[in-house]
């Protein structure tokens, strides 16, 4: 679309409020973050320290562990949560009896406070009185009678990331909405050609909601890069920093008055997020944006 010369003024006028707000709440804070990341700012005093914060961060095992764990969260979401959401969306798109009930039940975690969910799951995983150990004990797996799921190196991450699968409903609803927009003509034609339901799902529905599926992957990666409340409330990054994630790490730095180093961790997180998004955009470009 070509913009006429006399329209430029109006265009700028309409963009200006958004531009001002975007600059105030995004650009300036990011610039501030960048500048403070080169200082030893403790909330009171600040001195320029160059790249010291960045060097110290990358020498910290717990920080590297936080990046790795965030990547685990993202990969799990992209490879398990979103595909699971797709499968459920395909099944519910048949509008079988009771599909609305399933849709509602699966979406419920989205409308419940994440803090409440975290506390609930922490209780489920508790070693002494947790529901999970009670069930395992009652089905004969007495080895797990007092297993501390969130306090054990081998199970803490799995327990945390595993329970995040209950958020499958969010992506399911997005993809289900997309299936509603597919013209019935395709299915009628397939029916005439004798296609089974699975064939219709695989050869008509799935390809037509591919762009939404990839959008969900991008959303899932963004959400999981910002993972905070579940980790903070259920393990606080422990035991031994094994479940540490970037935002909890940043929060810890801020609470011990190392705001400069926390800012550096924030800059790294933004860079990591931008890098992941660029990779995803390049990989999924044709499907997502065309």
């Amino acid at each position, binding site marked *: 679309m070509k913009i006429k010369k006399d329209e430029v003024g109006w265009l700028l006028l309409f963009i200006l409020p958004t531009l001002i707000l975007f600059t105030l709440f995004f650009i300036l804070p990011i610039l501030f973050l960048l500048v403070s990341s080169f200082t030893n700012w403790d909330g009171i005093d600040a001195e320029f320290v160059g790249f010291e914060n960045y060097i110290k961060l990358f020498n910290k095992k717990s920080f590297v562990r936080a990046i790795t764990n965030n990547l685990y969260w993202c990969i799990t979401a992209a490879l398990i949560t979103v595909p699971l959401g797709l499968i459920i969306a395909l099944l519910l798109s048949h509008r079988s009896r009771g599909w609305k009930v399933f849709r509602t039940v699966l979406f419920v975690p989205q409308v419940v406070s994440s803090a409440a969910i975290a506390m609930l799951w922490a209780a489920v995983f*508790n070693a002494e009185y947790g529901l999970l150990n009670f069930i395992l004990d009652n089905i004969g797996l007495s080895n797990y009678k007092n297993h501390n799921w969130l306090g*054990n190196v081998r199970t803490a991450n799995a327990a945390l990331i595993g329970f995040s699968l209950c958020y499958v409903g969010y992506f399911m609803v997005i993809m289900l909405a997309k299936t509603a927009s597919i013209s019935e003509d395709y299915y009628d034609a397939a029916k005439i050609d004798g296609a089974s339901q699975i064939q219709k799902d695989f050869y008509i529905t799935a390809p037509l909601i591919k762009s939404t599926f990839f959008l969900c992957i991008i959303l899932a990666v963004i959400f999981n890069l910002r993972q905070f409340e579940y980790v903070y409330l259920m393990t606080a990054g422990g*035991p031994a920093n094994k479940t540490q994630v970037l935002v909890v790490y940043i929060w810890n730095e801020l609470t011990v008055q*190392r*705001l400069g180093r926390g800012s550096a961790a924030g800059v790294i997180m933004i860079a990591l997020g931008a890098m992941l998004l660029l990779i995803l955009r390049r990989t999924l470009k044709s499907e997502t944006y065309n």
Partner: protein
Amino acid sequence: MIKLILKKLSITFIAISFTVISSVASAEITITWPSIWVGKDSKTTVIGELIDEFNAANAGSIKVVVEEQTDYDIYAQKLTAQIATGDLPDIMTVGAQLLDVLHRSGKAMDLAPHINSDSHWNNVYPENALQSAMTDGVLSALPYELFVTPVTYNKKILKDAGYDEFPDNYDDFFKMCEAITANGKVCTSQMTGKNGWTSMLWYSQALASAGGPDIYEKGLDHPAYVKAFEVMEKMYQYTTSDAVGADAGVSGGHFLNERTAVFMNGPWFIARYTSDGIPGLHENIGVAAAPMLMGGEGSPGGYVGGRQSSLAAGKQSDPAKEEAIVKFLKWLTIPENVARLSYSSGAMFIVNADLPNDMDRLFIEMKQGISDAPYVAPIFQNGIGSLAVASEFPQALSALAIGDVTPEGAVEMLQDAE
């Protein structure tokens, strides 16, 4: 016509002016206090009563409004952020580890000028208590609550395991734990969640026992830090299966329900032995000094503790509000009010207060313990002098508890955080 409009406008202007002036003149000063003494805290009831009484006595002029903060750790983190942003609440309860930061920020109200304005605080505080809390002549926070953390133990569980008295050294202590475990009970309540509070208190005891009360001046290279972690490593062999990741509620809950035999916390927990413990628990509780490490630099009967909560206020631009805040702080430090607080909760305070004769038995035993103690060493969180190291402690402890690091490795984690 224009005259009429001008006349009407003038009348309206005068009327509005009167309304504004009268509303300003009669404006009630609201003091906000994000308080941790709410919910399950043992001071909740009396603090609530004191605020209600203060509000009633100052109805129409001052009103104290409490913002409930039920998580001590998150409250401290919130305060840290508020100190950094300069957005301090009117009144706050500050832990010892934040006092230095609060003072350096220069954003707290200086209470020093108010000490000399009348004799109240000079009369109610012990000699030099306020002067020693000043830095460069500035009093950023009013010292308020004191604490010590002796061992509290369940006499019934110990007796069932063949022990009439609490062991005075760690060798005998772990033999006792063995006997308690053989009896089907758990020896100690531990935790690594949040700031690792109750375990951090044990670590502080072991540290003072191994390195003496001045251990924090000797640096993290001192072998006492490793020795104290060796004690903790063993301690975690005799604790509940949920200790790694548990918070203070879980750790205390086990003792309150007689699942564990030994527990360590401050005197403010005394009231909860009756209010939240299983029936008869309070009668079964004994108080003792922590065990000693053989060959350590500490002395038998040594306690850890110190200054717990202080009361501070955000700097005010309105002198009337500053006066109102000082008036409320004075109300909280009136000896009779402090005595009520102490009586109901078991907590100890710096203010000189005549306590009733029928104070809780455990409170009296703890007070006696302080009198007999050769020293009261700071707890690790306050003594180490680094928020980063104190914050890393729960991670180092959990790494040790799950066998991820050795005691030397746990100390390295602390050094790495410095």
